[in-house]
């Protein structure tokens, strides 16, 4: 064990190891952040996107930070809600038993292009009578555009862009363009300046609560953009991190420990046990792995755990079982094993506590090197359409991007972000693995 510790100390001399460790720490930090800020259940729920959780975000928006590039100045989503901006709402009793609620959302619009949608959502609580509601739109050049009036039910959504009458009044342009267009320009260009949405409602009960939410959907949204179902990709990219790390580590641990245990059992008992293990290994090395998975995934169950278990099983009986066997054959002859027998140590104890610890230092680099293959494994089966249907993972993002033709449609961000995360996490472990290999393997000979 102290050899392992010393090995890790030697790492400081390898730049590649340091780079790898830095990358790995970043991913670990990200994973911790994801788990602390959002429980897995919530992430799965969000990603499933049931109900109307995602109606306040744009469809297929690129990340907001694209605006830092010169020449790009696209609208970012703007979201105003009286529920968290009480100052936008005033209530005044204008007659006995009648109150006027006035909501005003003034904002500056400075982008070169139009938003993609504009919607208003209202909620009414504690009201038996329907409040009377009307909205107006004030433009920077002083025009006032009435957006219509209506008796409010408990909750309403006004999808202004789909309002055909409004579109006609705006000269055939849907609201998210027509409301922002410069009336004097021949082409459709937005007019920059201060806009204001004014909404007024008459309510008839003193404790009636009314909330209004205006969402101007941008072409850009959030850190990572959104997908075709308006889901914010940060959810999957963030939560994909702990899942990828867990997959990678569990897969690698599972594969290494089981391979080692099986090799140890085979070497210790020898005879037909050993022969059987060797033959299985030889057959398995000729079997095609992914086709087998596709078969099981389509015929049996699309469950990430099951498929991972099968993948681990396939990688257990791999070439490495042979190299572990060679090491164990040597360990088996060590005098300390004979000593253990002389004080009645059981076969199980000898295998687990006397043989396996002996080769663990050799396994460290193999183990670290195996991690990326299991991270990529999840992505691969997702792209093959065998991914877990519920979990938000990098592979799922990639797979949906592919299904939606992200690259043909110019949604590069949708493919790039998960790919880069995969590559960098893989690179982190690979860089560390290389360095560990160099540190530990010279000692292999001194076993």
């Amino acid at each position, binding site marked *: 064990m102290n050899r392992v510790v010393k090995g890790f100390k030697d790492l400081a001399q390898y730049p590649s190891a340091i780079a790898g460790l830095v990358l790995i720490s970043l991913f670990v930090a990200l994973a911790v952040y994801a788990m602390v800020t959002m429980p897995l259940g919530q992430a799965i729920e969000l990603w499933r996107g049931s109900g109307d959780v995602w109606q306040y975000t744009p469809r297929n928006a690129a990340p907001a930070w694209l605006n830092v590039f010169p020449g790009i100045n696209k609208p970012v989503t703007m979201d105003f809600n009286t529920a968290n901006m009480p100052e936008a709402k005033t209530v005044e009793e204008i007659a006995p038993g009648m109150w006027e609620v006035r909501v005003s959302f003034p904002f500056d619009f400075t982008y070169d292009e139009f938003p993609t949608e504009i919607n208003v959502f209202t909620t009414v609580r504690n009201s038996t009578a329907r409040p009377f509601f009307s909205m107006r739109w004030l433009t920077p050049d002083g025009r006032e555009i009435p957006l219509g009036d209506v008796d409010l039910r408990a909750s309403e959504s006004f999808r202004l862009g789909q309002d055909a009458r409004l579109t006609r009044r705006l000269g055939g342009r849907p609201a998210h363009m027509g409301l922002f267009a410069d009336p004097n320009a021949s082409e459709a260009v937005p007019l920059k300046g201060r806009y204001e949405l004014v909404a007024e409602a008459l309510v008839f009960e003193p404790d009636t609560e009314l909330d209004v939410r205006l969402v101007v959907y941008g072409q850009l949204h959030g850190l990572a953009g959104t997908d075709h179902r308006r889901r914010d990709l940060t959810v999957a990219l963030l939560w994909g991190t702990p899942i990828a790390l867990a997959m990678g580590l569990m897969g690698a641990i599972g594969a290494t420990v089981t391979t080692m245990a099986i090799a140890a059992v085979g070497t210790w008992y020898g005879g037909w046990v050993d022969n059987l293990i060797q033959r299985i290994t030889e057959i398995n090395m000729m079997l095609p792995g992914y086709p087998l998975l596709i078969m099981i995934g389509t015929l049996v169950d699309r469950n990430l755990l099951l498929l991972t278990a099968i993948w681990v099983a396939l990688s257990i009986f791999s070439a490495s079982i042979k190299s572990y066997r060679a090491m164990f054959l040597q360990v088996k002859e*060590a*005098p300390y094993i*004979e*000593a253990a027998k*002389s*004080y009645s140590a059981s076969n199980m104890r000898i295998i687990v506590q*006397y043989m396996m610890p002996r080769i663990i230092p050799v396994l460290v680099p193999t183990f670290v090197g195996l991690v990326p293959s299991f991270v990529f494994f999840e992505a691969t089966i997702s792209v093959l359409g065998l991914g877990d249907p519920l979990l938000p993972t990098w592979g799922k993002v990639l797979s949906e991007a592919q299904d939606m033709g992200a690259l043909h449609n110019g949604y590069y961000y949708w493919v790039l972000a998960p790919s880069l995360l995969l590559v960098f996490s893989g690179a982190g472990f690979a860089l560390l693995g290389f360095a560990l290999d160099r540190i530990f393997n010279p000692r292999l000979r001194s076993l």
Partner: protein
Amino acid sequence: MEIFDKTMRPGTKPEDVLLSVEGLHKWFEIKRLGLFRVGDVKAVDGVDFQLARGESVTVVGESGCGKSTLARTILGLYGPTKGRIVFDGRVIDGTDKEALAWYRRHVGFVQQDPFGALPPFMTVQRILNEPLVINGVKDPEERQRRIRKALEDVRLMPVEDYLTKFPHQLSGGQQQRLVIARAIILEPKLIVADEPVSMLDASVRVEIMQLLGRLQQQYNISIIYITHDLSTVRYFSDRIFVMYGAKLIEKARTKELLKNPSHPYAQALMNAIPDPDPDNVDRFREVPGGEPPSLMNPPAGCRFHPRCPAAIKGVCDVQEPPHFERGEQHLVACWLYGEEHAEQTA
């Protein structure tokens, strides 16, 4: 139990016999290509002796004569091909697992290569804890007490300095002390020590031998001490068994054998007991000329006859010599001491 070993101290009562090794054989089957049986390496080929409580014997013989195989068979690490081991009145064979576990609890093993004999990834504490845990010492305080006592017994003190160390942090001599501590921690009645000092520096050999001798005295442990080097015999050992070609060819009390070696091979060995000059310690290996006998196809008759300066033609190369009595508690398997038999066969 009957006493058949005529070299035992006179007056030894049957209940004083701790170990009885009767007609012990250990053959290794040799297969070519893992399939065709080529023959057997008869590494132990008929060994008989008895050992009293608290008694120590030395088995001496050249490399490859079967000493380690004898040790392992006695320890129950190899099942005997033929013959049996009786310990404290109980027959030990592979069929009774409970008896084997009981036997192993009472027999300690000290190996040749101390570093190899210690798991390199365990601390001293854990190394000594293992036999206790495995053999059912359940109380952790009791285990701790015994670990301390064993370390004190082998003079690895202060104990605290050693408990957390790993074997590679100890010197060769300290490692061998630890191996001995492990061998005595279950309070055995017998220790089998297979060349315990041959891999150590000459400077620490004496202290390890003295340590074994002291433990034997202190706890009345019987010791089977295996060596190829007779110069270490004097530290303890009541009797000497000379092993040649998988058999014991001469058995006698230590003083008697050193004074009056009878078998020509034993005589060659005695002449080779080195002068105090430590450079000559290992010289005896070369002394008897010629090749050690093949254990797969041993020479007919006396296995030493091809190398023997006194071989009697027509006798020694024909018939295997039985043990002849040569004085008090002194047996020797050589026709020179039973010529009347030789004449009969000739």
